[in-house]
């Protein structure tokens, strides 16, 4: 749960983080990663036994073997499908739910303890139950990802609507704008940044959901690969799985940042 940010600061985060992906920063970022990998490699020769912490060159070799044998794609695509489906499902249900709750403040107040209770629940702990209910296939992991992300969408969208300038709504009202017109010109544009911020936060959480599900019960996926490597005391395997997960999160983050800059030009 360390990845959760408070929903209220999400759009700010969007603005500030934009710059970290701007093209001018990329060479410096790449250089930093390279230096860190080099330090790790050197440390594995001089400071510790690679049995405990592996080393980048061994991980690269393993990833190459996995790629050639086709296992890399099988595990990656499995995890991607689970996390992606969970994320989309959460957006599909969370956005309308957030809009609905924001428009029905009384219902929102009634449901508030329930929502905050479920949101505060360490949903990772639900994994064994979900395996029991939904089996060891894709569906239980999709449900894990979904429950991890759903509240991010609901709470972000509600907050986005809450921050709409009342004057803008009054102005629309004074010109007798219809309900649909207001939704289309004020409400939706106002929450788009919050939805994109939810995707950004949600990618990491959806991956966590899928991986946790795989750790508990499955026969494929990156989480399963990490788990089974760990069981065989194969640290290189563990790190290989983690590296792929990290790259997935980074690529997804980059894609969302790209979409943000394309869609939200007005910021």
């Amino acid at each position, binding site marked *: 749960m360390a990845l959760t940010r408070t929903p209220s600061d999400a759009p700010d985060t969007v603005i500030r983080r934009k710059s970290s992906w701007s093209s001018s920063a990329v060479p410096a970022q790449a250089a930093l990663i390279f230096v860190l990998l080099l330090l790790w490699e050197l440390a594995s020769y001089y400071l510790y036994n690679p049995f405990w912490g592996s080393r980048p060159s061994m991980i690269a070799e393993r990833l190459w073997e996995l790629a050639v044998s086709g296992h890399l794609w099988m595990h990656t695509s499995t995890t991607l499908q689970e996390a992606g489906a969970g994320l989309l499902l959460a957006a599909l249900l969370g956005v309308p739910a957030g809009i609905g709750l924001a428009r029905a403040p009384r219902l929102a107040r009634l449901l508030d303890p329930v929502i905050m209770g479920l949101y505060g629940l360490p949903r990772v702990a639900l994994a064994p139950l979900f395996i029991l209910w939904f089996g060891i296939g894709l569906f239980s992991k999709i449900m894990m990802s979904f429950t991890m992300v759903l509240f991010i969408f609901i709470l972000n969208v509600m907050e986005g609507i809450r921050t709409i300038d009342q*004057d803008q709504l009054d*102005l629309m009202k004074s010109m007798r704008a219809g309900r649909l017109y207001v939704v289309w010109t004020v409400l939706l544009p106002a929450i788009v940044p919050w939805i994109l911020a939810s995707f950004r936060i949600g990618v990491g959480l959806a991956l966590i959901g899928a991986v946790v599900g795989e750790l508990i019960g499955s026969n494929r996926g990156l989480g399963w690969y990490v788990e089974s490597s760990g069981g065989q005391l194969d640290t290189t395997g563990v790190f290989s799985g983690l590296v792929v997960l990290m790259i997935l999160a980074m690529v997804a983050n980059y894609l969302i940042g790209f979409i943000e800059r394309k869609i939200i030009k*007005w910021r």
Partner: protein
Amino acid sequence: MALMTSQREAKTGPVVAPAYASPPRAELKGLRISFPLPDMSMLEVISGISMSVAEGEFVAVVGPSGSGKSTILRALCGLLKPSGGEVTVDGKPVSGPPPGVGFMFQKDALLPWRTVAGNIRIGAELGSVPADQHEARIASLIKLLRLEGFENAWPRQLSGGMRQRVSLGRLLAYQPSLMLMDEPFGALDYQTKIAMGRELLSVWEAERRSIIFVTHDIEEAVTLADRVVVFSARPARIIADYKVDIPRPRHLRAMRSDPVFTQLTEAIWSDLAMPS
């Protein structure tokens, strides 16, 4: 004060007389407005105001900050329910926003995700202008408001004064027959203010809409309006209602040396300086 008011109103009329014969465009009768305070008591903001605005008349409202000028405009366009008295527009009691009433807010309330042209287009889309004339209307307003070259700029890229001009453009695009303007030129420098005032007058003289124009600038009120209504501090009452006997078309700079102008601004100054 009431005596003085009637004396001034008795003075012979201006060259361009508003059509007093037709029914008032907007009317307030004994309007009272209170707001609940956090401690459950009521804050009386407007305590019994009656005034009317004739067809095609330009009325300026001046008064101390916090006296309830914005509140009155909100009541007139149905955004706020009065706690007593009557509000009518075109003879009908106001319950929701009446048709043909445009409100230019004190804050510009531009949509940050719409360009300059896009924000002005909102007025056109919601107004009575036929769709095939929107583009021409928007283009002419952009020219009128000196926003050429900024059609596709986002609101965040504009200065405060430019934002106010976009907000005025949106109001004009709506083509309201009653314009409620809340300190529309508050963020403008002196030159632009004069220029915008001139444009507003030319639009108004061409199309004869009714205007209620709230301002803190006494000289601006006198240069632009047919009548200047002076509000007291909260709870607001009308302490004076002056007719501005300066012929139109007015020359906004030259008229500042007109004795009627200096007399009137002096009188309003002393009204506002009075403890009330």
